[in-house]
């Protein structure tokens, strides 16, 4: 369960006096477990900022935020790593570790969670095969195309079977067939109980996969349907 109650976000001003402007205002909504939601809105509306709140990269400046049943505003800092391990994130800019192979990048969440290496090997090989990168297992990100990197990023986000999956423009570098495959994976995960939130401005994709959406404009939630 994810719940925003009157959440506002203001990025900390760097090197500037005074307060920086609020980029999200009075956001309130609730996502039950296992739902699929689009997050839509023009560029600069605050989609990425909203997702960053959800995957605990920033803390709300005001309001109450509950992620997977934990009140994030009240939880001690040391409780957050365990919570983050239950959240999968596909970043707009992938954020793969350049000095690690595709295999090691995908294996990272499992190893951080301390899974046995035998299980890591099996799961990661299977996952990379599923995203069509069985032959690129030992390749480094710099040796992969944008689409291949995006698929590695997707594999890393879902490898630990997260309870909440957050994807920021996950199809930007994928062709239509790959995007379709990703959508099937996301629907399958949400059917198995994962809450899925996907930010996009790929209207054709949204049209092909109708689902409830959160609409953001100028940092305000203008629709939830």
């Amino acid at each position, binding site marked *: 369960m994810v719940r925003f109650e009157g959440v506002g976000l203001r990025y900390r001003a760097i090197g500037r006096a005074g307060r920086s402007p609020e980029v999200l205002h009075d956001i309130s909504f609730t996502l039950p477990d296992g739902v699929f939601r689009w997050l839509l809105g023009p560029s600069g509306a605050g989609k990425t900022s909203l997702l960053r709140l959800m*995957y*605990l*990269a*920033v*803390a709300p400046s005001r309001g109450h935020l509950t992620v997977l049943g934990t009140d994030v505003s009240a939880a001690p*800092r*040391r409780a*957050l*790593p*365990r*919570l*983050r*391990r*239950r*959240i999968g*994130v596909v970043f707009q800019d992938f*954020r793969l*570790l350049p*000095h*690690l192979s595709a295999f*090691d990048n995908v294996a*990272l*969440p499992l*190893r*951080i*969670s*301390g*899974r*046995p*290496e035998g299980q890591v090997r099996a799961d990661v090989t299977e996952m990379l095969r599923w995203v069509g990168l069985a032959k690129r297992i030992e390749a480094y990100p710099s040796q992969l195309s944008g689409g291949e990197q995006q698929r590695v990023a997707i594999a890393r986000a879902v490898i630990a079977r997260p309870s909440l999956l957050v994807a920021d423009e996950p199809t930007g570098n994928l062709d239509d067939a790959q995007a379709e495959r990703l959508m099937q994976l996301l629907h399958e995960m949400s059917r198995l109980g994962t809450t899925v939130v996907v930010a996009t401005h790929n209207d054709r994709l949204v049209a092909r996969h109708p689902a409830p959406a959160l609409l953001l404009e100028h940092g305000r939630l203008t629709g939830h349907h």
Partner: protein
Amino acid sequence: MTSVSLRPSGFDELGLRRALSDRLLPFLVAAMAFLAALALAGWVGAASLAREWQAGSGSSLTVQVPRPGDPAQRDSGPKDAPPKDAPPRDASEGDSDKASGSAAGGTRIERTLSLLAGTPGIDTARRLSDAQLTDLLRPWLGAGAGRLDLPLPAVVAVRLSDPATDLDALARRLSAEVPGVLVESHGTWVGRLTALARSLQACAGLALLLVVGVAAAVVAVATRSGLSARRAAIEIVHGLGATDGYIAGRFAARATLLATIGGAAGALLALPVLVALAGLAAPFAGGSVPAEQGVIAFLAALPTPIWASLVALPAGAAAIGFVTAQGTVRRWLRRMP
């Protein structure tokens, strides 16, 4: 926190093999360890010198009697000079106040010895033999000291049973009876030498503390530069749910490895220097210069505390590396949500 992680041992998710490179840190730590070894040797050496000098000699003095064989003065100076409470076992013949028994026209040395023997607070008074004297003088006069026909004074080694004995009074009384006698208290010299040794020891300790501080600073600077070089990777790993302990552990493992290598190298480099120093210091510290030459003998010449410190250096460097890296990384990570 992850309890048992079976992550592969070579898994370098933060890219620390390059960010905390083996180029600079081990060399800096080796230099620190070398300096620390010297400081430790100074500390141990000064401590053992101080102990050596203090032991036993704290309550002793020497009395020099020039022209020991000459007959003692017939008529000594002030009549009240001899102690009234001293049993006049071997009183001088000219001492009219006392019952002069044997008084067999003693020599100056005999008079001195008898006076000393009759003084309360004195444990033993022993005349050094000519051979012992020659030994003492050899450093100044060479091996032929015994053959030189020098008018050597007799030297009496005195051990006090009561360290509070009034040495000035004793000296006055002795010179009254045997003019030209010299009383020299070791206490003053031992005190001065001990103070010197203690100051040297304090300086060595201070140097050691400084070296530890600089080593910690070096590790901290290297860790900080590694942190900023790997900021992006740390943010990603942090975002994937790595605890502060996990990330700090990666840095600490790397820093500990590099510091241990540096510490061991510094200790190895210091070894020959310490052996040489120990050889030089052995005569002063009451030890013996190794008779037979050879590596084993030279190594055996190192005092045990020095050996212990040499072994402790890599361990100390490792501890400094671990603690500093852990602290630096954990403090840095606190800025993250």
